[in-house]
């Protein structure tokens, strides 16, 4: 395909484009589990199934169509795998430039660095920290993903020894960082079955690094700081050399060079997604660890910078990150932002209103309410579930607005809440008349007692306080 023929963007692709190339066996064979080829084509377009699920298509007879489909569906940014077997991670595979166009694939893995000159216990501690990082966010566990091993000694023996030790300690995918091909060769020799990412080929060492990437079948990063022509030329060269799995590092400049960083990332991704430039269609590596190159700056300030630079790079097309900070306050906002960025943009902001039942509530169980803003609801749901409380939760339709905003905007009022209470039918399910309202809706309590005739208990401002609140206030003390 020439560069001029820009292939259809993922959004312009219709199920019909796929359908045309499917086997269309009559009567439908149903081997993919769908009713017919059109239904299958629709799922393919939505990236819910891979075309390989159509087993007839894989027969020799349909080879031409299969190849065409592969090409049609190939992401603008190549998907590259780091690691082997169950411990592998897919990088890139981006179909679109902007989040609102289509769900982003392959959330940006975060790698934490160790070096071959760190004391062994420090290396082990950092690896353990990465493996142990866990945060429970709306029912999902957020993790860190990889270890980047840097050779600061430039000594092949030392590098190999650290790489081996790390590989023996953890199953996490690895990035081997050294610009010295001799050190890389020795280290790779001991862990190539783990398919680590090689960092990096430059304008000076590219031939040797390319040989290593080929010999050991490992993905290779191209490093051309602030020189996209060099980066593109290196890609051109290495593709012709036979290296297929490439990764780009156009340089991460964190201070006054930040505009170049963001612009380089953006230009690469735009040329790939909107211009069909296949030479630039590779994942981008962000290296916020470079903030640490600045000397005589307090540690907290560098951690601070690294945290926000990482978040910006993720917003601007970075497919993998190498960081140094291990502080929770640095990594938490980034793992959450990553989770958020990679959610389905077409998912509604609101959840269905109505009565939700948790556990096995009886006629004496607490009744609470919240709004139908998805994030509010999921947070409350996750807090109730993790506390194991049996209760009723009325989800009031506020048009997908949070408690605080809907009270301020007069969407959540005593009337709308009373109406939701009535419709929920909870009156028949419990024999008490106590309603727990969100702390952020406290101002409605007086009015609500009047409109509903129920006793109002003002609950915590944050749903994390629900278990403690119930412990102190439930069952309610008799009116005295």
């Amino acid at each position, binding site marked *: 395909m020439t560069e001029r023929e820009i292939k259809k963007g993922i959004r312009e692709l219709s199920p019909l484009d796929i359908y045309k190339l499917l086997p269309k066996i009559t009567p439908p064979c149903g081997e993919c589990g769908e009713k017919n080829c059109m239904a299958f084509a629709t799922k393919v377009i939505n990236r819910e199934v891979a075309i390989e699920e159509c087993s007839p298509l894989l027969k020799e007879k349909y080879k031409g169509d299969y190849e065409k489909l592969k090409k049609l569906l190939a992401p603008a940014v190549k998907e590259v795998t780091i690691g082997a077997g169950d411990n592998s991670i897919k990088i890139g595979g981006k179909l679109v430039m902007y989040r609102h166009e289509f769900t982003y694939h392959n959330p940006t893995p975060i790698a934490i660095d160790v070096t071959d000159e760190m004391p062994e216990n420090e290396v082990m501690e950092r690896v353990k920290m990465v493996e142990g990082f866990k945060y429970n966010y709306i029912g999902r566990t957020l993790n860190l993903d990889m270890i980047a091993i840097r050779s600061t000694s430039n000594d092949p023996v030392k590098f190999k020894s650290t790489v081996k030790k790390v590989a023996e300690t953890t199953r996490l995918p690895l990035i081997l960082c050294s*610009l010295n091909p001799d050190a890389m060769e020795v280290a790779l020799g001991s862990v190539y079955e783990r398919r680590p990412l090689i960092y990096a080929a430059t304008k000076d060492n590219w031939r040797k690094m390319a040989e290593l990437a080929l010999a050991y079948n490992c993905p290779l990063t191209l490093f051309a700081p602030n020189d996209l022509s060099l980066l593109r030329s290196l890609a051109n060269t290495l593709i012709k050399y036979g290296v297929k799995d490439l990764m780009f590092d156009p340089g991460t400049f964190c201070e006054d060079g930040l505009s170049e960083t963001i612009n380089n990332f953006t230009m690469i991704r735009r040329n790939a997604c909107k211009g069909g430039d296949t030479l630039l269609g590779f994942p981008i590596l962000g290296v916020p660890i470079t903030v640490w190159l600045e000397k005589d700056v307090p540690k907290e300030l560098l951690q601070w910078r690294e945290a926000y630079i990482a978040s910006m790079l993720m917003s601007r097309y970075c497919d993998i990150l190498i960081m140094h900070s291990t502080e929770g306050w640095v990594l938490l906002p980034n793992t959450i932002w990553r989770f958020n960025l990679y959610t389905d943009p077409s998912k509604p902001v609101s959840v269905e209103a109505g009565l939700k039942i948790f556990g096995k509530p009886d006629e004496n169980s607490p009744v609470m309410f919240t709004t139908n803003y998805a994030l509010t609801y999921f947070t409350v749901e996750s807090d109730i579930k993790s506390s194991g409380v049996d209760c009723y939760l009325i989800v009031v339709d506020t048009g997908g607005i949070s408690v605080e905003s809907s009270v301020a905007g007069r969407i959540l009022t005593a009337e709308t809440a009373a109406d939701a209470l009535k419709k929920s039918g909870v009156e028949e399910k419990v024999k008490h008349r106590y309603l727990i309202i969100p702390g952020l809706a406290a101002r409605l309590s007086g009015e609500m007692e009047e409109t509903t005739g129920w006793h109002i208990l003002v609950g915590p401002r944050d749903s994390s306080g629900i278990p403690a609140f119930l412990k102190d206030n439930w069952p309610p003390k008799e009116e005295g």
Partner: protein
Amino acid sequence: MKNKKGNKNENEDASIKIGPKLLELLSKLGEIELEDVEIDAGELEIWIPALSTVIPPPAVAPTVTKAIPEKPTEILRAEFKPLVQTYPGRITEVKLGAKRSEGGSRSRTLTIGGETSPAFYLFEEVPPNPPVVSVDVFDTEISLPRALRTYVQDVIGDPAAWAKIAVDKFEADAVTVHLLSTDPLIKNSSPTDAAKTIERVLQAVDVPIIVGGCGDPKKDAEVFRKVAEVSEGERVMLSSLTLDMAEAKILGNVAQAAKKHGHVVLAFTSMELNRAKELNRRLYEFLPRESIVMDLTTAALGYGLEYSFSIYERARLAAIMGDLELQHPTLSGSTNAWAAREAWMKMGPEWEPRELRGPMWETVTALALLLAGVDVFMMMHPAAIRTIKEVIKNLTSLGKAKSEDIADWVSIRL
């Protein structure tokens, strides 16, 4: 059967040289293919590249690399040319604040908007008016997380003194005075009292002022009309005008007051571009385009920031692509980040100190929206404010990156 067996043997041989992955790949192929189609090894080879995009490609044995015709011996140049677009649309420029010569009393004014490309695409356009920060000030006692309270403890309840700190210490480009005390459910202060507060703040600082209401559409309308009158000519921004006001048939009154006294309005909608357009259409009946800024709603990091991010990004792209009803600068209430429990809650030693976690929450929230195209940020924590101002400075000029600075990051001892 004979064929099947033959292939299997080959697989085993190959596995010695090229590792288990190819074996796995071939065995998978075997399952699919060998049921009803007879193929020979020649065909098998042809099939490998096609499948190799599904499964990681096999390790390449030396014999296979030889098959590649010629390896380049020098870098094959392939110059980079950025994909530069031109767009039919432009964000309207809006001026906040007015100097004496313009009928106000500000010594500093701000111009926002004017962009003709996506945010910070410097390869297309250097932003004509860099985004600005307006610092939040409240006119009454308010519950604040400790990390925020520390910095303003002494001035809570004194909005003029608070505004002064915001400008002198936090380097605010503008100040937002939230007239919370006017809330009928809080103090129900009168529009006249609210107007006095605004007058005092206007005297205390020389930057543009944003006037925040309490969220009750009827009360806000009364307060805004009074404030508009007493701050005649100052070009304050009234925050905010809503479709609820339109429903209560009071939007026109407020918009007319803004026009009569020379002010700007903030059109607030909650994450729905069609509603934003509808509100703007209603405002066009009363106000020039140069007097309208949009607030599309900011949800905190972890609590819907991604929705805000996509809405602001879509708004900017639609605007420059020619949607006239969205060609307005945008504002984000990034202080909303503090609604996230992770911003203020005590969470266990591995997540501390929250004195850093909190302002980082505000920073990450604001920076996501900066990249999406927001022009004005309402913020509170001094560290977050300083960071976003620094980032804006760093993002608006090119030519500062020195490749030698980072060329050797791999081997640097930290």
